[in-house]
């Protein structure tokens, strides 16, 4: 106990200051700061995630009672040839798209890297397709390349490039080629922008030093630009691979999975099981498998990139 004396001389008893209440502690303040984000993540990500896992363990009708049937929804995936084919197709699409998209985006970024008159126009022009919604872009290509009313065939015929209509989605290879063209048109500008930020972060002095040491353009590109651009390329690769593995809009709208199921992606099978076959439990199981595979792949990518850095 402490005794203190007031100015009027009267002594009063005082106690040592009480510890701050819980909500004033540093930890509590941290929780409060994190609460809005935690709430959003909890409601919009964690709760649906838990629900989807629970759905995957049940036979889940559109209306009515769910019935626990684990692990049926998972074991029957092996008997779903459409999904197994879709896995192979999606991986093939991912590899081709990622490689082509990276090359085109890097080429565009190098083209518009240096400041010169009119460069803003080209940067804007290359980026502009990225402002079109992806579903709209798929519908646009559907119209442009349609053999019955699309303008591309007549233009090519007028120019003497083709004699007969090109069946842009008529064969598996053409359907894949047309879709990849659409994806590159839509995303090359966006990826160019990512790479451009990486390119502009490389100090000019490094290039000047290389030039004064007698390095030619190829040597500067392979020994300076690419190594210093690696973290940016890594980010682009993660975005491209994840986006390609989750491909849906372009195939659903543009090719409708055809011809003959040759362009069915994994997410299309999930959508089909849920909304055409009304097998919500089965679709949830496919989603969980896809999620686990994506998380594992991203973890692997991050590990490889960290090691190489």
């Amino acid at each position, binding site marked *: 106990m402490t005794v203190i004396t007031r100015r009027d001389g009267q002594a009063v008893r005082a106690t040592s200051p009480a510890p701050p209440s819980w909500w004033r502690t540093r930890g509590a303040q941290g929780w409060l700061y994190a609460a809005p984000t935690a709430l959003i993540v909890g409601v919009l990500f964690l709760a649906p995630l838990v629900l989807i896992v629970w759905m995957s363990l049940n036979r889940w009708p559109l*209306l009515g009672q769910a019935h626990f049937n684990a692990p049926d929804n998972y074991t029957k995936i092996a008997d779903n040839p459409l999904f197994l084919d879709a896995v192979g197709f999606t991986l093939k699409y991912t590899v081709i798209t990622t490689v082509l998209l990276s090359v085109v985006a890097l080429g565009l970024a190098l083209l518009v890297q240096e400041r010169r008159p009119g460069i803003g126009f080209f940067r804007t022009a290359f980026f502009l397709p990225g402002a079109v919604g992806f579903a709209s872009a798929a519908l646009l290509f559907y119209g442009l390349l349609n053999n019955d009313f699309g303008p591309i065939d007549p233009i090519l015929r007028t120019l003497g490039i083709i004699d007969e209509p090109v069946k842009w989605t008529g064969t598996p290879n053409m359907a894949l080629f047309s879709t990849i063209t659409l994806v590159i048109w839509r995303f090359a500008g966006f990826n160019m922008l990512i790479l451009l930020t990486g390119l502009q972060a490389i100090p000019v002095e490094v290039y000047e030093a290389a030039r004064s040491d007698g390095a030619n353009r190829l040597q500067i590109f392979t020994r300076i630009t690419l190594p210093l651009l690696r973290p940016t390329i890594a980010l682009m690769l993660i975005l491209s691979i994840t986006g390609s593995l989750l491909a849906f809009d372009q195939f659903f709208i543009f090719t409708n999975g055809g011809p003959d199921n040759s362009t069915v992606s994994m997410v299309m099978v999930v959508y089909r099981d849920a909304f055409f076959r009304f097998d919500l439990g089965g679709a949830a199981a496919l989603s969980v498998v896809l999620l686990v595979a994506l998380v594992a792949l991203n973890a692997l990518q991050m590990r490889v990139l960290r090691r190489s850095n």
Partner: protein
Amino acid sequence: MNPRSPRRRRAGAILVGLLAIASVAACGGADPQPADSAASAAPAEGVTVTMWTRAATQAQSERLVAAYNKGHKNQVKMTVIPTDNYQPRIAAAAGAKQLPDIFASDVIFVPNYTSQGLFLDITDRINALPFKDKLAPSHMKLGTLDGRQYTLPHTLDLSVWFWNKDLYSKAGLDPEKGPTTLKEFAEQATTVDEKLGQDGKVSGTFFGGNCGGCYVFTFWPSVWASGGQVMNPEGTTSLNDQPAMTNVFNIYKDLYAKGITGATAKEEQGPTWTGFFPKGGIGVMPMPSTTLGLMPKDMKVGVAPIAGPDGGESTFVGGDSVGISSTTENADAAWEFLSWSVSDEAQVEVMAKNKDVLARTDLSDNKYSAEDPRVVLINSLVAKGQTPYALRFGQTYNDPQGPWLRLAREAVFGDPGKVAQLNTDITKSLQQ
């Protein structure tokens, strides 16, 4: 680290909470096949009920709703959804218990929706209708489950052959004489193509070659007309590898191989397959009867029943059925619209007046039908046609990734030797 640290305990508590939410969501569903508990109550007035319909039958639905809203205190607010998107929208809405009060459905999907408990049981209300036995039988059959009835016929859309009389005249064919067999159909299409198709602007015929629903709608009537079947009555075994079906495939395969069909028939996914005939570039082709009223005024169109290779007549009695959703709180107001839509007034003054096929067999002879013998012919086909029943119809036959489209495309454009194997895939899908 201590396995029971406060941080872990908190995380565990959050997880348990989320699981509890999920469990509540899982157990909170309505009972399937809900009974109609308010069948005898008088409908409330001034109620606005919501209704969904698909774009394919939009025109008919809009006319019915407009006429109803004009003369009733209760109102119907209709939303039209793109046909290809309709099934997913219904499924998503049902899962979220956000179905409209009334929704129409392609009649072939009705058994599945009924078995999922999406429609309200309206057996007692239907039994009270004085004309209940005159409602389109194929639609009523597909809306019945275990003796209980869930839907009424909404619109009827029959597959028939349309031929372009002007092109027939130019090709030297009798413009008043359409095909009476599938073989004649092929001959007439070939004549039109050979005589008028040199510049690529006219083709003998056309069909949706990359569209499962188009195949069943336009090819199956030829099977039925020749006495064959495409499935067993229970809709669990496919008969699409039988000669009745393969003979039809072979005729179309021959037409495509000879270039008699439009150049893009193989790629046609469905959205535009009916758009070629009204442009005047097709000689003869199967078409939905609902498009008759949409033909250009100056176009002379002949209508014939779809026939088998050697004759017979049949049609796919398609279109929509309509029911009250099981989650509605406005069942009486919804029924007021539904019962009015099959009344004499709606059927004659709205449907017949616009050359649509009627949902009631007792009204086919009315003051409007006599004006156009083509409409009389189409109405007469309702009794001769079929609507196939299968619980798994959509995922088997309409789904672009379903097994039927693969079989049909192999049969018409690819290797017919694969049909037998692919037919077992169809049966497997029907039995899932």
